[in-house]
Structures are given as structure tokens and as C-alpha cells.
């Protein structure tokens, strides 16, 4: 087990280095740079811009910038934002909560609804419900998240006026109810794709489980259908779904970014877009690394869980 862990961990580290290099190269080929915001200013001179470039260390060769950045990162220093000099981790930390709240809520919705649809589809195989769920999942995977958000805003905010069109809460009203009210639309929008994925997966997993011997045995013993399903099928199917959760993380992050844009949600997605617009490279790099770590960690945990459950995997 230890050898397995070590090898997976070292692989992950190599991955992170590759990710950081890709990110750094991409940012460095940008012809604009963080001072382009000042290009229109009537009072900024070329000398000012050259001076600030030097102060930010942007006039050094790329590989030195990279090594410098990487060395600091190893020591736990993620650098400082070009906007105001705040430490990058602080900047990201301020936006993590909003994103996690949104992702968490929508994941819970996805699990609940997806599990229900999946199990029902499996137990009522080839029924109208199953057929609609299959087609519906495929359509859900095809709808652009942001467009679904726009349509949602149009119907529920602009036409019906039931739900707020954006923001995480009303200023001066930080109550849980207020948060909840603002959460409904974006989290449903974000969960759409994942309901589709979960339900598909759950359906397959349930079908697999139903055909297994112990379920048949349990059923033969006269345990009720519902209990068999809940205890054995769901219990067995949920485990592999953890793997899926790890694999799904990048797409949840992507969805979150777009959803945050549509709903003016103060999370990491919007921070990323703002930082891109300002060419705030340290923050952009920080977010890239942060999300890469999340994704790799998700995969790693999934692998480990599977390895613990199924020792054969370790040999592979």
C-alpha cells in the first residue's frame, strides 16, 4: 500500500510541475501584460511602465521567472497579486467559500436527484421513465450551462420575479434564508449536467448490483425490495461513484466558472476571469495550480479508495 501511495504521489507531483509549466508558458506568450490596463492612462509614461515591469520582475528571462516562482512556491510563498500586492493565497482564500458553497449545494442536488433517477431507471428498465431519463440526460449534457442560466434568469427572475438574478446575498441581510434564496437558481443550473452524469452512472451501477448473487439471496430471503435496494445496491454503487466524483471535478469547476459569471457569484471563477482581464499572473497561476491540485487530489483519493476496496488494482 505504501509503495502504491508513494508512486501515485510522485506521479502527481510530476503532473503538477507539468501543469505549472504549461500555465507559465501560456501566460508569458501573452503580448499584453499586466500593465496594459494603464496603456490608456493620460499620465502614465513609457518610463513608468518600464519601471513597474522591472519591479514586478517581468523583464527577466522566462525560465528565471519560472524558477523563481516555483522555488517560492515550494517554500509556501504563492507570490503577491499584481493588483494591490495581496498574497495570492489570501486572494484565493477569500473566494473559495463562495465557490465551495455553490459546488457543494449543486453536488448534493446532483447526487440526490441523480441517484433517484438512476435507481428508478434501473428498477423500471425500458419503461417510459427510463427512456425519457436516458434521452433527457443526453440533452442535459448538451445544453450550454450559461444559456440554461440565462433562460432560468429570464423565467424565474425577470418574468416571474421569484428568484434573484444574481449575487450571493443581499447586503445588510446575511441570513441563511437569504443565502438559500440566492443559491437556488445557480445551484440548480450548475447541477443539471451532473444530474445527468450521476443518473447514468447510478443506473448502470444499480443494474450491475441487481444481477449479483447477494441481492438475489437477500430478495429470496424475503427482504423487501426497497430495503434491498437501499442497503445493498446503493451501498455497493456509491463506492465506485466516489471515483466518478474525482473524475468529475474538472467539469464541476468549469461549470462553476461559467455559472458564477452568469449569476455574478463572487467565487473563484469570477476571480479567474477578473485576474485574466487584468493579467494578474500570480493570481491566475495560483488559481491554475489550486484547481490542478484539487483535480489531482480528487483523482488520487478516488484511486486510493478504489485500491483499498479492490486490492487487485494495486497490481496494475
Amino acid at each position, binding site marked *: 500500500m505504501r509503495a502504491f501511495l508513494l508512486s501515485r504521489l510522485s*506521479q502527481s507531483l*510530476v*503532473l*503538477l510541475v*507539468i*501543469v505549472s509549466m*504549461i*500555465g507559465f508558458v*501560456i*501566460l508569458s*506568450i*501573452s*503580448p499584453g501584460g499586466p500593465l496594459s490596463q494603464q496603456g490608456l492612462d493620460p499620465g502614465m509614461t513609457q518610463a513608468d511602465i518600464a519601471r513597474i515591469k522591472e519591479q514586478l520582475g517581468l523583464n527577466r528571462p522566462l525560465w528565471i521567472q519560472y524558477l523563481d516562482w516555483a522555488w517560492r512556491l515550494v517554500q509556501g510563498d504563492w507570490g503577491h497579486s499584481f493588483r494591490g500586492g495581496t498574497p495570492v493565497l489570501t486572494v484565493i482564500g477569500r473566494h473559495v467559500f463562495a465557490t465551495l458553497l455553490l459546488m457543494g449545494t449543486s453536488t448534493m442536488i446532483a447526487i440526490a436527484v441523480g441517484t433517484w433517477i438512476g435507481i428508478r431507471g434501473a428498477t423500471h428498465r425500458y419503461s417510459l421513465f427510463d427512456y425519457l431519463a*436516458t*434521452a433527457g440526460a*443526453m*440533452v442535459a*449534457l*448538451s*445544453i*450550454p*450551462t*450559461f*444559456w440554461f442560466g*440565462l*433562460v432560468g*434568469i*429570464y423565467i424565474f427572475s*425577470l418574468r416571474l420575479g421569484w428568484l434573484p438574478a444574481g449575487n450571493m446575498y443581499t447586503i445588510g441581510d446575511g441570513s441563511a434564508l437569504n443565502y438559500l434564496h440566492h443559491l437556488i437558481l445557480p445551484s440548480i443550473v450548475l447541477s443539471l449536467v451532473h444530474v445527468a*452524469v450521476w443518473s*447514468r452512472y447510478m443506473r448502470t451501477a444499480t443494474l450491475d448490483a441487481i444481477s449479483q448473487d447477494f441481492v438475489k439471496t437477500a430478495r429470496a430471503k424475503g427482504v423487501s425490495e426497497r430495503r434491498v435496494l437501499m442497503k445493498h445496491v446503493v451501498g455497493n454503487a456509491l463506492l465506485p461513484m466516489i471515483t466518478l466524483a474525482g473524475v468529475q471535478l*474538472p*467539469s464541476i*469547476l*468549469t461549470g462553476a*466558472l*461559467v455559472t458564477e*459569471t*452568469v449569476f455574478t457569484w463572487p467565487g473563484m471563477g469570477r476571480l*479567474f*476571469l477578473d485576474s*485574466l*482581464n487584468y*493579467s494578474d499572473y500570480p493570481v*491566475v497561476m495560483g*488559481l*491554475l495550480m489550486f*484547481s*490542478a491540485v484539487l*483535480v*489531482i487530489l480528487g483523482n488520487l483519493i478516488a484511486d486510493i479508495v478504489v485500491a483499498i476496496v479492490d486490492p487487485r488494482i494495486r497490481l496494475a
Partner: protein
Amino acid sequence: MTALAVSTAPSRWWHSRAAYRFMNHRLALLGLAMITLLTLACVVGPYLLPYDSLNIDLRARFAPPMTGNHYLGTDPLGRDLAARLLMAGRISLLVGFSAMLISIVIGALVGVVAGYRGGWISAVLMRTVDGFLSFPSIFLVLALAAALRPSPLMITVIIALTKWMEVARIVETEVRSLREREFVQASRMLGLSGTHIMFREILPNAMGPIIVAASLTVARAILLEAYISFLGYGIQPPLPSWGNMLNGAQQYLASAPWLAIIPGAAITIAVTSFNFIGDGLRDALDVRNDHI
């Protein structure tokens, strides 16, 4: 020419049976019909409509659908939305299709080489694949699009760059299993070069999964183009694309909702069609693919 005889031995066994199964897949047929219609409309439609997609008429701005000959209404410059939608479709479909082709080529290349060679070559290639997969692709794409001058070609390449990894993985798995099959062993014993074996012997036999991946990749590429263009980093006006038609639409959501609803519906129809087709192909070709 014994090699040829050997290589065709496993034959394209899926040909007839697969076609039959595909034709029985109702959703796939629906998808095929929709995408054929949509493509046809995009190719021919602009010539049939009474308005040119670039014709600006400030007096007719924000006309709702079914105003006069503006079947889908007009945009903020008074241009005919139907004409723009079809012209945009050309771009979006073309970008999606080209991005798919590029990513299939890259992915197949990497997958075949990694799967056949194995060893450190495989390790390096597949870790690079993992590296690219570790980026939430939207972050990567946006960073690239913000850094480069957005042109349709550039957007296509960028999208392809984030979509080839899955193809590579699928192909690699397939090739690794094919590598030990008799016809490959035979080719090797005949002294055929590695390149020949990889691309003449193995690749044709891995076509099933590649075709499935291709149809799903088109769907994702169209979606991704929509995402980037919606965020303002993609295809730039005056060139219309379904994504950038939506870019300005949020501003007019209250006063002219059709500007947002219609292009989004077009995207959904196109992407759904490709997903249906992909699903049908997967069933027909009996490809196991966990990446949905």
C-alpha cells in the same frame, strides 16, 4: 503482399452488423436527421432568406420574431437574426468539426505511439496527457484565448488542444490490447517497420472507438466554442458564431429575450444531435467508453 492479407484478417467485422444496429438506434437516427437538416440549412439557408446577415438597418432594430420577413426577429443593429443564426452555424459547426479532426489526429498519434511503444515513451506521453487533463479545460482555454489573438483558426486549435487527451487515452488503451494480438505479432515477425505496424495494421482496427470519440468530440468542441465566445474570448464579430451571438444577449435579456433564447437553442440542438449520434455509434460499434 502477405502483409495485407494478414492485416485484413481480423477484417472490418463491424461493418454490416454495426450499420444495422445503428439504423435501429432511434435517438441516433433522430440526431443524424437533425444535424443533416441543420447543416443543410446553414449551407443553403442564407441564400434563401430575404435578408443578408450583414445588412444593418437601424430602423428595424430589436424586432421580435415573426416581424415581417424577419422570421426570428432582428438584433441590436437591425440585422436579420435568422440569417445571422445560419451564418453563425457555419462558423460554429466548422470550428467544432475542424477542432474534432485536429484533436483526433493528435490524440490518435499520441495514443498509438504510447500504446504500441510502451516503456518510457508511453510514460512521458501519457503523463503529458494527464497533465493536460488536470487543467479544468475552461481555465486552459481562457488563458490561451486571452493571450493569443482570437481568430477562428486559433480558437479551433485551442479547442483541439484541450480535447485530444481523451482520444489519446481511448486509443492508447485500445492499442495496448491490440498489440498482443496475432496479426500484430505476425506483422512483426514479417519484419515490418514499427511505423507501418502502428498506422497500417493497428490503427485501422482501433477505428471503432475513434469514430465514437469523434462524434462526441464534435459535440464538446461546439459547446466549448460557445463557452469561450460567450465569455468574449472566442470568435470575434463581425464574424458571427452561436457563442458570440449570446455574448451580448444577456444585456438585452429583459427587453429582447429572443436574442438569447434562439442561438442557445441552436447550440443545444446541434450538440444533442452529435451526442445522440455518438451514443448510437457506441452501441452499434460495441465500444466500451466510460467517459460518457
